[in-house]
């Protein structure tokens, strides 16, 4: 019988280090840090205790009329995951308005929130996302709105059309 092998991939996990988009970990600016901590610690609204949605029934969602929807992904945390997800949106011509990502689970996985256009093709977007190896779960967050993302970037307060210099 072969002996079990120790986990071959050592994972660094310094606090508040983002592994997703760069080969070398980059420290998240401290202003955003607090917000990210808030999200991961649940200070911002956590997902309602619902079972993960079937990916087939998005069009019934009430937030559909609002123009945008929020998807929550649980993904493997390693360099390249962000490229896989943003690349999917780019090459399939889907809209991706905003993105937030924080490491969770001791850094083994990340939680990602995507602000996407609520269009009929959203169902296809979700199915394509679900096919990515690094994407573990996809679910809909009807409780979150686009404003949520603007709270994370103080200089963007006011949203599209707002004062670019309007730092609160």
């Amino acid at each position: 019988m072969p002996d079990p092998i120790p986990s071959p991939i050592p994972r660094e996990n310094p606090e508040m280090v983002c592994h997703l988009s760069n080969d070398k970990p980059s420290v998240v600016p401290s202003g955003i840090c607090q917000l990210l901590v808030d999200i991961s610690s649940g200070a911002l609204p956590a997902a309602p205790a619902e079972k993960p949605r079937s990916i087939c029934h998005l069009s019934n969602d009430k937030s559909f009329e609002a123009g945008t929807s929020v998807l929550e992904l649980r993904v493997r945390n390693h360099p390249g995951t962000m490229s896989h997800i943003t690349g999917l949106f780019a090459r399939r011509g889907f809209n991706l308005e905003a993105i937030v990502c924080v490491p969770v689970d001791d850094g083994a996985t990340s939680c990602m929130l995507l602000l996407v256009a609520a269009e009929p093709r959203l169902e296809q977007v979700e199915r394509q996302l679900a096919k990515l190896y690094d994407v573990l779960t996809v679910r809909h967050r009807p409780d979150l709105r686009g404003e949520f993302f603007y709270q994370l970037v103080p200089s963007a307060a006011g949203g599209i059309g707002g004062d670019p210099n309007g730092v609160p």
Partner: protein
Amino acid sequence: MKITGANLLRILLERQGIRTIAGIPGGAILPFYDALHGSAIRHVLTRHEQGAGFIAQGMARVTGKAAVCLATSGPGATNLLTAIADARLDSVPLVAITGQVAQSLIGTDAFQEVDTYGLTLPVTKHNFLVRHPAELLEVVPLAFQLAESGRPGPVAIDVPKDVQNATTDVIAWPEPGSPVPLPPCPDEQLDALVRQLTVARHPVLYLGGGVIAAGAADLAQALARRVSAPVVCTLMALGVMPPDDPLFMGMLGMHAAQGTNFLLEEADLLVAIGARFDDRATGKVAEFCPHATIAHIDVDAAEIGKIKPAFLGLVGDAADILCRLLDRLPPQHRPAWRARAAELRTTHPLRHAPRTEDPLHPINLCRFLGELLPPDTIVTTDVGQHQMWVAQAYPVRRPRTLLTSGGLGTMGFGLPAAIGAALALSSVEGLAAPDRRVVCVSGDGSILMNIQELATLAELDLPVAVLIFNNAQLGLVRQQQELFYGRRYEAAHFTAVPDFAALARAFGIRGLRLDPERDPLDRLAEALVAPGPCVIDVPIHEQANVYPMVPPGAANRHMISEPELASAHA
């Protein structure tokens, strides 16, 4: 046990059952080539990395198992990309391994550095950049598992040179990667499809390459016979059903026989199995099968409803679904519908000059090949008119005996894929038939895109015959310019066409050119019977077009047909 990353990679591939790898060495992959020295793995040295990618594809398309291609960093990796993208679109299991510059150099614009991870990301099912030799223990089996599971596809593994050189401790070996079984499709959906099939009056089965990937050809045939449903196939599914079967209607879409597309207009239930409603098959999507309810069986949930809304989507393994469907379905006789299909088939034959008059008409050539070659002969094609003539007129009698670049439409596919197929026949247990002829049907445009692999072929001395349908044109380009661009021919004609027979001889391969006046079909037969590789240059008429043709973007019922020929016959 201390072991280098390069040796670890080699051992993991050996444990995976890999016997042949096609590739080209270079600086960043040399440690791995050193590890291959003395290995049981046979390395096939190609003359261009794209050739290596398509040789691996040829092996994979014949066996259904993931095959491996190998290249160095930078240009080696970029040259592989086309073959990887091709495998992605045709769902071919492939593991592409590339060397990368040492991690200390990544990001410095080092010699032969390119972002292989970034470049392969959009054209693979998944990709890896290995950062530590120990990761190989996880990555290599996982790469094969991903390549072969569910909907097959290519996986890329980029291995920096320092990872190949570094050592790691191996305490135990992982199990080789193997396909993960899929969750079964729920019974209720099968029952719903049974109800649909029972009430339908004019059902049609629309089969795609997924039927072959699932090994479900016999089951699809059984379903067609059980419910008396005519069968249309995509290019990728040719071979699923014998062409002489009364229910077989041939390929659908842009270059289908007219009767096939007309039949789809009359269908009231379309059961798509392992097909993805590609635009070449559907024509104008909004007008595809206008009267049909669509049921879609696919291993990939994202395909259901991607192009055309399906009334019923069944996600799972096609073989499993068809087995369980057949358990539930009583025989259904639809004599009128069968008769209608037969009528459409006989009243809309391909029109072309008879063999006695024009033996080298491409349709006659393809039919002649069908008479000459045993049913298990593997035929590869390149891309263009010759590919469509093969699809229309060559009788593909078994699954996995027509290898063609369907989704990406890559000119240059045929020759290396044929070499890969012959390699699989010469080395894979259960397939071993080293003398079995493999025929690559190509065009004078396509063949030049990977002509250098004739050197590889000469070295391997495999029984590959290359037939070049030679019209000194990019024929399908010229055809489109003739039909849709007011005969303004631009960049479609070659003024310098090589003497392909002499070119073959220059590579050390038998070469001949058929003379239309001197028993060309007899000469062709003799050339194919003689052992070893050969190149046969077949002059065809410069103006020959592939008919019928649906103009790009038009509905499938709007077909341009062959202009009336005095001597045309069925």
